[in-house]
């Protein structure tokens, strides 16, 4: 395979931070090359240098053997480099076709000729498994399809190299599989792909080679055949990583949360939670497994008072909590880690300390009558920053300036420092890298040992299996079955996640089926 892109000793610094430190990288024609690293390792910065969003401080870029200068995105596009950013660069009210041709000269300038564009989009769609309705407006499309539009946009500009920045972060498992098929089709037609990720399975599943970045430096480049997830994790983090959580045996205590025949209507006006019943006890993590969009978010919201229950009953520590306000529920000893920390978990423009007291600022010791007590707040936030290892230049820094992992630490510090009786953790590791995920897992286990009952909602089956004492599987708003976490069978859970089979609600299951399942998995 011939070389398409080569980076030589790329350096990029921001005030106070070295984002890229003499990075070399070589991309061959027709390969899928993973760029693996933790958040903040410099992956996106490096690619932004290639795409002309940033100018490197030093270093050289070679394209097809020729040294090139890339001053802005336009130059990169002209060379044949396309980039799909983590936050899509699509204009929501415009149609697919309009987004695709945006910025390009039309056939009869200045008149638009959308029909021929739509036809071309349709053809590329056929060729690369990228089926999209060219007349649809972006805001109407699910994120998985929007991502296809971004890829089509690059293809329409004759890209030979496609940079995908964390493309799977927003996708459901099925969409991830579809994306891999698209990428394979693209490489068959000679395109090269740089795949930015921090997910080890995806690297192993779909890439030809992998380059690992850590703290702005390239650790190594390896062929996939020569590596394994454990080795990659070690290279990425710089130390041995617990890919599986360390959990102690604890007998569950009294019931804290009891949900009986709960139903609720979701944002689209359709039933999202249907007749759900379960209990969570002290010292117990109850995991809710399921493919994203099956009502697990709404379930968490209904219990925490954000969504109205249309039927059923929620009891917390023996008290009725059905359709109470979020404030009342908060005062029942409930802590919530919401699924979207930027929208629901944090006030992004507020400082770290203000976020830390956001759910208790009106209470002593933080307030006295109408006055905030700066000293107490400082004392508390400094302790929280230390205890929860929040990496921030100081408590007065705006939360939006922190990395995703540290933002989540702020949420966790706020929620766990009040020693809750019940913790509702909804997708607490979404978008976090290996270290931060490991950290969140440790905190959840610590809360469990401290006596909290934990409702743990996640779409990552791996972490559900490694943390949960019991697992409820949700499909289209219904609990398909509840299983013990210890020795749970992945295949069985997978089938229930797809809505295929309902096991007995409880811990036992027919012996014969269990045997069959274990045979199948072996």
């Amino acid at each position: 395979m011939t070389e398409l892109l080569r980076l030589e000793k790329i350096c990029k610094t921001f005030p106070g931070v070295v984002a890229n430190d003499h990075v070399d990288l070589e991309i061959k024609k027709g390969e899928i090359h993973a760029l693996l690293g933790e958040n903040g390792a410099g992956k996106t910065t490096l690619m932004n240098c290639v795409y002309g969003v940033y100018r490197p401080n030093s270093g050289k870029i070679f394209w097809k053997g020729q040294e090139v200068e890339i001053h802005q995105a336009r130059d990169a596009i002209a060379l044949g480099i396309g980039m799909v950013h983590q936050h899509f660069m699509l204009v929501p009210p415009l149609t697919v076709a309009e987004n695709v041709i945006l910025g390009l000269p039309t056939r009869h300038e200045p008149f638009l000729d959308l029909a021929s564009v739509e036809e071309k989009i349709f053809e590329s769609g056929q060729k690369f498994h990228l089926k999209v309705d060219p007349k649809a407006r972006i805001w109407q499309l699910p994120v998985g399809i929007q991502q296809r539009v971004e890829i089509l946009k690059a293809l329409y500009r004759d890209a030979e190299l496609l940079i995908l920045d964390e493309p799977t972060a927003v996708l459901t498992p099925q969409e991830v599989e579809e994306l891999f098929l698209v990428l394979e089709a693209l490489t068959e037609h000679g395109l090269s792909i740089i795949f930015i990720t921090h997910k080890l399975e995806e690297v192993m599943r779909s890439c030809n080679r992998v380059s690992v970045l850590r703290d702005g430096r390239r650790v190594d480049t390896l062929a996939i055949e020569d590596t394994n997830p454990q080795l990659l994790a070690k290279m990425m983090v710089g130390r041995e990583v617990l890919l599986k959580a360390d959990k102690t045996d604890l007998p569950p205590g009294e019931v804290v949360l009891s949900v009986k025949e709960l139903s609720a209507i979701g944002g689209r006006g359709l039933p999202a939670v249907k007749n759900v019943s379960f209990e969570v006890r002290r010292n117990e993590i109850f995991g809710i497994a399921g493919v994203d969009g099956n009502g697990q978010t709404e379930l968490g919201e209904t219990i925490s008072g954000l969504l109205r229950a249309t039927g059923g009953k929620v009891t917390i520590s023996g008290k009725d909590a059905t359709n109470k306000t979020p404030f009342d529920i908060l005062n029942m000893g409930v802590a919530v880690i919401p699924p979207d920390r930027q929208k629901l978990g944090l006030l992004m423009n507020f400082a770290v300390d203000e976020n830390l007291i956001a759910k208790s600022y009106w209470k002593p010791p933080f307030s006295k009558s109408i006055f905030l007590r700066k000293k107490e707040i400082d004392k508390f936030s400094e302790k929280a920053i230390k205890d929860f290892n929040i990496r921030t230049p100081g408590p007065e820094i705006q939360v939006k300036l922190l990395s995703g992992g540290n933002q989540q630490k702020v949420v966790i510090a706020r929620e766990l420092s009040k020693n809750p009786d019940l913790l509702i953790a909804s997708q607490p590791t979404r978008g976090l890298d290996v270290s931060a995920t490991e950290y969140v897992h440790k905190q959840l286990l610590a809360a469990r040992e401290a006596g909290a009952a934990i409702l743990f909602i996640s779409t990552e089956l791996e972490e559900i299996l490694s943390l949960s004492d019991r697992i409820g599987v949700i499909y289209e708003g219904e609990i398909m079955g509840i299983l013990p976490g210890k020795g749970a069978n992945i295949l069985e859970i997978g089938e229930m996640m797809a809505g295929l089979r309902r096991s007995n609600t409880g811990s036992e299951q027919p012996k014969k089926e269990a045997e069959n399942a274990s045979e199948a998995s072996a």
Partner: protein
Amino acid sequence: MLEFLGIFTTVEFYIAVVQMTTPILLAAMGGLIAERSGIIPFGMEGMMLMGTVGGVIGSGLTDRVEVGLLLAMLAGVFIAVLYAIMAVSVGANQVVTAVALNMGALGLSSLLYVLAFAGGKGEVIEDVIRVRAMPLWKIPVLGEIPFIGKVLFNQYPLVYLAFFMAPVVWFILYRTSWGLKIRAVGEHPHAADTVGIHVLKVRYLTLIVCGMLAGLAGAFLSIGAFNAWQENMTSGRGFIAYTSIVFGRWEPIGAFLGSFLFGAADALQLRMQTQNIQVPFQVMVAFPYIVTVIVLVLSGKSAKWPAASGEAFKRESK
């Protein structure tokens, strides 16, 4: 009390509706293009004011209406470019900048008027100075149609231009690559930037177009429907034009209907004043503004603004 209904039977009323719609419509079309690119066209009042004085000076000093129109456009563009420098290049708060410019234009227009007609001595001008105004253009054949011909086809050239602008703006926005760029820049400037569109250039150009049209709208007041100048001649029509845009949900056809509504309200209050109806004069003058408030209350909640409107665009630091 009901005698005012007689107004609706006179052809003069309908001619007045068309003429009162014209300045609002011209400015609204310019403002609409600007706001679709992400700039709140709140400075239209100032652009229009400068247009009124530019028109009267050009026409008064040279005795040629074309010079008046040209000067009116330049005067509108002057404010528009000042606005662009502040709002687009510097990234200052758009509403605050626009308010400052509107107030500045109020004073500047008076100053320019005095300088032009008092021989630079800055004296107070007591008499109204009459200047040459636009002639009516009667369209052959169509102008002969009874009633409609008088209302629509025996009008000032700027009237035809204003009514022609609505479909033109629609076509530019939805059928050309220019319009696509304008819409993209107004909704998601970063996305536009990544595909190589010059965001700031697009915004400057739309504001210049806005300045030209608002300047002409001002000239229509001073040397179109009237032939002299008075202080604060627009009396808020720039803001009413903006209201028409909001009323029309940022669509050219909607803004056209909005302008028409306000034009009709304006014409009605003018006619009522001449009919000697037993309603205090101030109430009638306030009528279009009351309509404005009602319209904003009704349409404000469901209005869907161009997503990036009012936000300055800055690239990430390099």
